[in-house]
């Protein structure tokens, strides 16, 4: 869902770039409290892993592929503020080094994937976690459901941008239906990858998982150190 140059006009792209910059600035402040000597390298590894898995396009419906977005995965592993930063770094490097996503559209893409997908995904994660039994496997399931829905949420962000400032004149409702439908399918792949990745970290170092340790008592975290 890396937006190329030209889809959305420059004024709209500029406005979303400002909104994205504000979100990133807030996230830098917010991430400070969740990042320390122990979690900063995990946050770096999360960004690295997401970059790698974003290269792995899997086939979805006829003639379409999708790849991990990683927003819900990152939010659960390192918290939503650090996740916004991780996805943003990946998107900037992809645009600058690999010509993946237009430079003028970078703010649009960051807004959709680093902000909407991360925060919407994290909200869903918290909701699902709340109604699930307090077990480790619930974390993986909540993360997977968050992942599934975070992808169409990011797609909806694009449709909003299209509605405001598209350079084309095709109907917004057609774009909405196609974008949500396709990205729900991609969301299934997103959910599977997120479930297994969160599960792998929970199995080896559950103390590092932001979305898990928040429900374990502070005392237990101290004892683990």
């Amino acid at each position, binding site marked *: *869902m*890396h*937006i*190329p*140059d*030209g*889809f959305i006009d420059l004024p709209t792209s500029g406005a979303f770039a400002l909104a994205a910059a504000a979100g990133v600035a807030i996230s830098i402040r917010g*991430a*400070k*409290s969740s*990042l*320390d*000597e122990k*979690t*900063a*390298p*995990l946050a*770096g*590894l999360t*960004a*690295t*892993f997401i*970059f*790698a*898995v974003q*290269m*792995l*396009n899997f*086939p*979805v419906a006829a*003639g*379409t*592929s*999708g*790849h991990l977005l990683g927003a819900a995965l990152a939010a659960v592993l390192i918290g939503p503020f650090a996740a916004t*930063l991780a996805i943003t*770094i*990946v998107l900037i*490097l*992809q*645009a*600058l*080094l*690999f*010509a*993946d996503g*237009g*430079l003028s559209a970078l703010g649009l893409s960051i807004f959709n994937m680093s902000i909407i997908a991360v925060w919407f995904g994290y909200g869903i994660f918290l909701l699902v976690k709340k109604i699930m039994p307090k077990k480790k496997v619930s974390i993986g399931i909540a993360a997977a459901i968050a992942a599934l829905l975070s992808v169409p949420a990011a*797609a909806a962000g694009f449709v909003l941008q299209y509605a405001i400032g598209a350079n*084309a004149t*095709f109907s917004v409702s057609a*774009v909405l239906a196609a*974008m949500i439908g*396709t*990205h729900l*399918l*991609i969301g299934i792949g997103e959910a599977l990858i997120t479930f297994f990745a969160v599960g792998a970290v929970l199995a*080896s*170092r559950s103390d*590092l998982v932001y979305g898990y340790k928040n429900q374990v008592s502070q005392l237990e975290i101290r004892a683990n150190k």
Partner: protein
Amino acid sequence: MKQKTFLISGFIASLFLAGVVSFYASSNPDGLEKVAGDIGFIETAKENTNSDGVLADYGVKGVENERLSVGAAGVIGVVATGAISTGLFFLIRRKPGGAK
């Protein structure tokens, strides 16, 4: 598992995915591209300003072997993302013992 072991395993897994598995990735258009093509607004896309870059489209310019080209681009991307993101996260982290 020790934190160091965990981080190194994760990094090696990322190198393997981007350096080796990426060759087998689907080259079909992604969701947005497909929708843009089906509906028609793909026409408004402009050529990427970095499309002449050495690593554009996840390949190393001048390397003919596709497997090598995409694999090397993936490894470079993993190393760059790892170094830059870990560096930035360390810069903004809570300093030990320091006031907030």
